[in-house]
């Protein structure tokens, strides 16, 4: 089929920067024209690199625009999008950075990239009401141990071997974050999504790992560093444990209320489901 083979040759030449323009294409002189075809190749690359620049503004700030562009170009060449919905494009970039072994001398870039990716996921996640502190206060205390917790659709728990959240917070612009771009697929130079720089308690041992909660109960994404015990508690709840089972992981199981209040206050809980009462 000529149609199929013509477009297959076009697609193949798009993917190979060294390929000549497809033989079936014509410029004004009646022959394939490399500069004309290069416009398409450039549009594809610039658009996808722009999507990564928009998704990973802090990583870009950490390594500088030139180095970021080189990394992004390599990623784009290896990871062609499989969907026209570019909101999800670039999820694999953190692992790609880690595999490249890139470090900026400022901390592990891949972890900061994972945090930025979680930020974007939370930003676009399904909207849902979050449990409030008043809702929590209205529950019977004796119902709590057997209850399970459904995390909010935007909530993300991440555990880093590096102080990724402190680095992320320290590399914000300071100014009011710009609204994230619409990143139309034809938009190579969109504005960066600002991360809202929530004041973070500086981890006492900043060269150690950080456990992080990303949440977006309403419009704004927030990023919080959790105490290690709080992270383990939340992670168990995410995995389906009852409050009593999750509390058993705490140094002081009776203190689980503090951690539960923290999750609720962050807007990270969609519902608290009472257990079966005997």
């Amino acid at each position, binding site marked *: 089929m000529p149609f199929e083979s013509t477009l297959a040759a076009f697609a193949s030449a798009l993917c190979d920067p060294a390929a000549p323009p497809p033989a079936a294409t014509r410029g004004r002189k009646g022959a394939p024209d490399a500069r004309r075809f290069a416009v398409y190749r450039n549009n594809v690359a610039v658009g996808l690199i722009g999507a990564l620049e928009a998704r990973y503004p802090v990583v870009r700030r950490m390594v500088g625009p030139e180095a970021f562009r080189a990394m992004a170009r390599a990623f784009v060449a290896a990871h062609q999008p499989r969907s026209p919905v570019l909101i999800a494009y670039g999820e694999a970039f953190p692992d790609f950075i880690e595999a490249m072994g890139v470090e900026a001398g400022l901390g592990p870039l891949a972890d900061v990239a994972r945090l930025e990716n979680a930020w974007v996921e939370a930003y676009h996640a399904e909207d*849902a009401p979050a449990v409030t502190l008043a809702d929590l206060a209205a529950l019977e205390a004796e119902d709590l141990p057997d209850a399970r917790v459904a995390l909010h659709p935007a909530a993300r728990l991440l555990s880093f071997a590096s102080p990724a959240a402190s680095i992320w917070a320290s590399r914000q612009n300071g100014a009011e974050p710009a609204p994230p771009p619409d990143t139309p697929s034809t938009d190579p130079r969109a504005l960066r999504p600002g991360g809202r720089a929530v004041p973070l308690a500086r981890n006492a041992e900043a060269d150690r790992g950080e456990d992080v909660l990303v949440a977006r109960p309403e419009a704004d994404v927030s990023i919080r560093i959790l105490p290690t015990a709080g992270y383990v508690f939340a992670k168990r709840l995410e995995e389906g444990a009852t409050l009593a089972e999750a509390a058993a992981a705490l140094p002081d199981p009776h203190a689980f209320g503090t951690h539960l209040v923290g999750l609720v206050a962050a807007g990270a809980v969609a519902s608290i489901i009472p257990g079966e009462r005997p």
Partner: protein
Amino acid sequence: MTETGSDALSRRSVGVGFKAEHFDAIFESRPKLGFFEVHAENYMGSGGPPHRRLEAIRALYPLLLHGVGLSIGSPAPLDGAHLARLAGVADRYQPALVSEHLAWSTHEGAFFNDLLPLPYTEETLARVCEHVDLMQSALRRTILIENPSTYVAFAETTIGETEFLSEIVRRTGCGLLLDVNNVFVSAANHGFDPYRYLAGFPFAAVGEIHLAGHAVDSDDAGLPLLIDAHDSPVREAVWALYREAVRGLGPIPTLIEWDNDLPAWPTLLAEARRAERAMDAAAGLRRERANAV
């Protein structure tokens, strides 16, 4: 979504592409504008601030939905999942118009983030018409197909672009989106007369016009190569071509597209005001336009 007072799209409407960066300025000033248009793919996330902003805009203005990823110009079958997503966005926002491109962007599952050209032959015409039929069935509405800006032509092309578009209209009943900047860009790039192209364009099917800025480069032969960049004001020669189109069409919903290197809101609004004046003058209309909703 509940019905609002913002559903009427008049023939004399002028609108702009909605960008998140302009939301605050728009919401504070609530300018009198005919409509906003968005790229459907940017609203295919589940939730979050993009939908909150668009719902707020939609409550105040008519909305037009412009698809950039369905790849109706592909030989392969349409992506059913993507078509369903597009129908979902259309159901949610009840746009006054839905449009897509005479172009392709997907090949064997890989998405090329651009609007790519296709040869114009009986074979490609049949395939495009099948895809337009499917899209119109899925959306349960007539859609508009946009003429492309192109940088290369194809050796096997046997049908002229306006004839190709006319035949899509005849076979599918769809309407057309006349992108005047694309006409100008393609005319310069392939060496045809944009006014003659307009004279051959099936005006009766046109439901909307797009206007945008373009950049200037050159090809292997050193000839000018215009790039459909959407990053600058509409050029004077494109305004002239627009006036010619409106003289033939009468008043017609017109969009200012500005997607890259976004200007401050007042600059974009000024482009829309210029389009209103140009449309009125070319269509021989006189009217008072209020400045706010």
